[in-house]
């Protein structure tokens, strides 16, 4: 029998899993609190998904339009999330984002500037005022590099290219550690800690067309689920309206909303600016209804309303699909996104340099002259691990979650730019929460050796079996199933079939085989990640089947429109005693009066009233 004492053991007060914006911000906070802190990540430091973020981080700094304040940011976030957000999280986020952004400047971030030398802010969908602090269209790089440099000099130990397989618990049900393996050698490692913070990101790699990277296999969600935590709002998937559609090899790669924020417009094959047709009733009073008004807005007229291209992402994504279905799509099944005729070439190259390069080098399109072809791509999971709004702790003692892997802030639909600020605000709060937990619960919990052996055995089985299924091909099949049955438009029949097909593939995956040794073996890594992806995708499909309405990032063809009764509940998934998934409704309770008042107020009542 495997002797657990012989496995390499690494101990810290707190271990953060994930080195994106959320994980690094959490780690910096722990180190500021005087804790011994380790960060574990699957890729090299600085390469996490956050590095890809383009458009900006939302915070009501009021630098560009002084009418902005936290209340309006809060109101926009709740309205964008169709009132399924956790009230308290949306409040904390709107109030604390400005300080988190200014703090980055203190650590070396260089944002674009206003004429007065302050942090510039750009327009984005669903945000009433220019609100996104940005650095060209590479804001994520600015954020991650700043936090990385800050972390390196804060005494944080980074364990990179190490994948965590599963969590360990002591006999009281408190998290005691976790088991992982070094990708380089395939050797196992036992982590021990007093608290663990998950900041593992999303699970978009379950879809055929996605802006997400290989890392996004929903590991954190699945591990937390297996450890007894709940997953919430999983049915809400954000399909970003503008992914690249051509050539096929780049299908899904993101085109930042910043293009529309800078004035870009969407047109169909008839040259029609179709978004004017699709403004939802709720947003009509705040959206321009003529091209003339939209153009005045672009020219800086503060009394003009915002163009419909800047409606929330769920609306724009569905509109593009409608246009394509009606036969008015672009040659490769998308819509046209045009910035070249709206802004001078120099301006585009300065504000959207990486979009310019991306299209020039990957699609041979010069966006300063010609329109781009774009269509929806799986981008973000609003759902994730359910946490306490103030401490970020899950239902499992000692397990915290923040960033994209956690749920609550965004409700049914996330506003662009609200993720980067989410990472900073709740990354920090998770660090504070973990410190409080440790202070109240001293001592290093015991490790159960059987749990360790079990995890290692199921990982090595994949290498040891004589033959079996090709993990890549199963993954490809799963992506097709989700794309076809758990996509933008959903039906009862489709979801039911999708769940059955997921289960068939999951069964097949039980005999998956990785050839070769354990040393940097991509096939083995793929096989191990797959197990997590199945859980994440199943939760999404099952929650989507239960929610019989259309709201935000969840559209049911058989149940159109929002239904009042569904506005009163969130959906949670957890593991039953028999190992099967339980999916149930969770009452939201009374709306907190002071916040509901803000969310339902008119703009005039809130403008310029910070405090």
């Amino acid at each position, binding site marked *: 029998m495997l002797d657990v004492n012989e496995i390499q053991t690494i101990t810290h007060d707190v271990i953060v899993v994930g080195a994106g914006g959320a994980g690094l911000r959490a780690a910096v906070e722990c180190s500021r609190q005087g804790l011994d802190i380790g960060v574990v990540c699957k890729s090299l430091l600085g390469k996490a998904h956050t590095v890809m973020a383009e458009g900006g981080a939302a915070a009501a700094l009021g630098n560009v339009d002084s009418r902005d304040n936290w209340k309006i940011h809060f109101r926009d976030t709740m309205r964008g999330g169709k009132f399924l957000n956790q009230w308290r999280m949306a409040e904390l986020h709107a109030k604390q984002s400005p300080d988190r952004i200014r703090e980055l400047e203190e650590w070396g971030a*260089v944002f674009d500037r206003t004429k007065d030398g*302050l942090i510039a802010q750009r327009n984005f969908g669903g945000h009433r005022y220019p609100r996104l602090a940005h650095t060209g269209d590479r804001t994520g790089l600015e954020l991650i590099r700043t936090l990385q440099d800050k972390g390196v000099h804060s005494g944080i130990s980074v364990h990179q290219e190490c994948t965590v397989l599963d969590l360990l618990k002591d006999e009281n049900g408190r998290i005691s550690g976790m088991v992982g393996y070094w990708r380089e050698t395939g050797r196992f490692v036992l982590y021990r800690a007093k608290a663990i913070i998950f900041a593992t990101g999303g699970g978009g790699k379950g879809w055929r067309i996605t802006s997400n990277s290989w890392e996004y296999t929903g590991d954190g969600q699945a591990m937390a689920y297996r450890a007894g935590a709940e997953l919430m709002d999983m049915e809400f998937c954000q399909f970003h309206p503008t992914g690249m559609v051509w050539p096929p090899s780049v299908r899904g790669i993101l085109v930042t909303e910043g293009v529309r924020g800078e004035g870009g417009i969407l047109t169909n094959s008839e040259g029609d600016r179709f978004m004017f047709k699709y403004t939802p009733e709720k947003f009509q009073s705040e959206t321009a209804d003529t091209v003339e008004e939209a153009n005045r807005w672009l020219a800086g007229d503060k009394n003009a309303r915002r163009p419909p291209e800047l409606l929330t992402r769920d609306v724009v994504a569905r509109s593009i699909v409608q246009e394509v279905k009606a036969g008015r799509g672009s040659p490769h099944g998308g819509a046209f996104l045009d910035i070249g005729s709206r802004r001078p070439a120099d301006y585009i190259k300065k504000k959207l340099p990486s979009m310019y390069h991306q299209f020039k080098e990957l699609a041979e399109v010069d966006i300063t002259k010609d329109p781009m072809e774009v269509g929806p791509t799986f981008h973000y999971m609003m759902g994730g691990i359910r946490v306490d709004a103030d401490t970020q702790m899950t239902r499992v003692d000692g397990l915290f979650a923040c960033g994209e892997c956690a749920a609550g802030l965004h409700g049914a639909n996330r506003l662009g730019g609200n993720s980067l600020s989410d990472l900073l605000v709740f990354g920090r709060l998770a660090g504070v929460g973990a410190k409080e937990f440790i202070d109240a619960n001293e001592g290093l919990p015991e490790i159960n050796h059987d749990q360790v052996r079990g995890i290692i055995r199921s990982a090595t089985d994949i290498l040891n079996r004589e033959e079996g299924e090709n993990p890549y091909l199963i993954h490809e099949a799963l992506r097709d199933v989700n794309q076809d049955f758990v996509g933008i438009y959903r039906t009862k029949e489709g979801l039911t079939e999708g769940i059955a097909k997921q289960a068939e593939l999951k069964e097949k995956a039980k005999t998956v085989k990785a050839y070769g040794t354990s040393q940097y073996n991509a096939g083995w890594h793929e096989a191990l990640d797959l197990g997590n992806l199945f859980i994440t995708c199943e939760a999404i499909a099952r929650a989507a089947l239960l929610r019989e309405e259309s709201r935000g990032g969840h559209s049911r063809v058989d149940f159109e429109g929002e239904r009042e009764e569904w506005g009163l509940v969130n959906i949670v998934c957890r593991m039953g005693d028999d190992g099967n998934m339980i999916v149930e409704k969770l009452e939201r309770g009374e709306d907190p009066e002071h916040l509901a008042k803000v969310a339902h107020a008119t703009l005039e009542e809130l403008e310029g009233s910070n405090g």
Partner: protein
Amino acid sequence: MANRTIRIWRGDQSGGQFEEYTVDVGEGMVVLDVIHLAQMHHANDMAVRWNCKAGKCGSCSMEINGKPKLGCMTRMGDYEADEIITVQPMKSFPVIRDLVTDVSWNYRQNERITPFTPRPRDADGNWRMYTEDVERTQEFRKCIECFLCQNTCHVLRDHDKRDQFVGPRFMIRIAQLDMHPLDTVDRIPATKEEYGAGYCNITRCCTEVCPEHINITDNGIIPMKERIVSRYYDPITMLARKLFGGK
């Protein structure tokens, strides 16, 4: 779709060889796509780093037909239809397996650099910096840490001066801090003594391979060298300017 042959280096520290794979290549594919096809259908265990597939993360650095490049930004269409493409790991770093190398030395260089230390905020809690003041520093912050410049610089590649010279990536990191309008640290002595600015002889090979088109040499290294010269050897500043052709 068309069949294409690609030669990929397979092996580890103990040695290796090129293997040929023939895969069905679709329209617009980049070299990384072709590697992934080979991995999916012929060599499941092949090691290659990647994340964003859009030139934003700097993970997929490799040498393609001998040139240091990002696999995700190199289109198959850039090569002749019957050309065999050869892919190997970056040469200057120890190989771990197949296309993956040990780049940890770079992370250690970053740790040696004194962190950013800003002046106090303005009275209202903000810092004021103007577009003209930040543009120079922003150019260097575009760096995606692909380490292709480090791989190319002959001081590191052929002369193995890793103990003495931090390399072009970190020279621009230092220049970035030095040109940051808020930073208060005097970085000139360390740039000369510890980071080895003198080893660079301005061949500009690093600038040529930078996928972010950062003007590493002319905008970063040369100005830093000039500052060292004017600090330590003032009388010959004029001559140095001529030699280095700076601004």
